[in-house]
């Protein structure tokens, strides 16, 4: 609503109006989700290390049976999703900080998101195949 309609003076900086960048309502989202996934990964990461160490010398059947366990399958899927989510948020900041050519920056930002979604889907699909195939 413009100042003309309401009779109230718009006190925003003219540049801000011109750019159309008001409050996006999601200012701390990136920061917060990065912390949220970090906290989850503290637990899931330690769990993952433990399960890898436990399966160090397991043969194929044992490893497959372990991953097929409902809790392990559930936590593995949670780990894969959280890991890629956290990775994208972190890589995004690194790219934004160090890649100063705009088109390269955008290409990289899109590429890591595509790759992370593919990676996450592939990981989830693999766990589901193991867990649901008798």
């Amino acid at each position: 609503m413009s100042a003309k309609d309401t009779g109230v003076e718009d006190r925003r900086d003219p540049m801000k109006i011109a750019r159309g960048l008001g409050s996006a309502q999601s200012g701390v989202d990136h920061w917060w989700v990065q912390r949220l996934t970090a906290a989850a990964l503290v637990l899931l990461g330690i769990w993952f290390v433990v399960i890898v160490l436990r399966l160090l010398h397991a043969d194929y059947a044992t490893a497959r049976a372990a991953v097929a366990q409902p809790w392990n399958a559930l936590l593995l899927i949670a780990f894969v999703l959280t890991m890629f989510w956290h990775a994208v948020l972190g890589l995004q900041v690194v790219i934004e900080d160090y890649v100063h050519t705009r088109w390269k920056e955008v290409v990289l930002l899109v590429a890591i998101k595509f790759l992370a979604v593919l990676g996450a889907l592939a990981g989830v699909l693999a766990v589901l195949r193991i867990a649901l195939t008798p």
Partner: protein
Amino acid sequence: MAETQRPLSPHLQIYRKQVQMMTSITHRATGVALAVGSLLVVYGLLQLAAGEGSFNSFRHLMGNPVGVILLLGWSWALFFHLCNGIRHLIQDAGLGYEIPQFVRSSWLSVAGSVVLTVLVWAYVLMAGGAA
């Protein structure tokens, strides 16, 4: 960004080397390394899902010297990012901002990551080597 010429704020080379600089940049570097490592996790799961032959060749791949060295690096990266990440979460809660605390917790992250890496690989060696 590159097209505007503005005076730059003092950059890295102007500062004396401090441990908190090292942990900060190492946190990013290990984060990037772990992001690459996440693809290995998925690759391992895919090979496990694909069948016995694929899984065994994956284990064979990771068991050769180059694979073990990569795993060693990734495990340290994981533990450093874990320890220093917990440090950052504590700092996000507003704690540990006095300079001596800041320096001490940096060293704690380094020490913790080394201790955890040594513990894990000692276990691997005792259990009869990797893969």
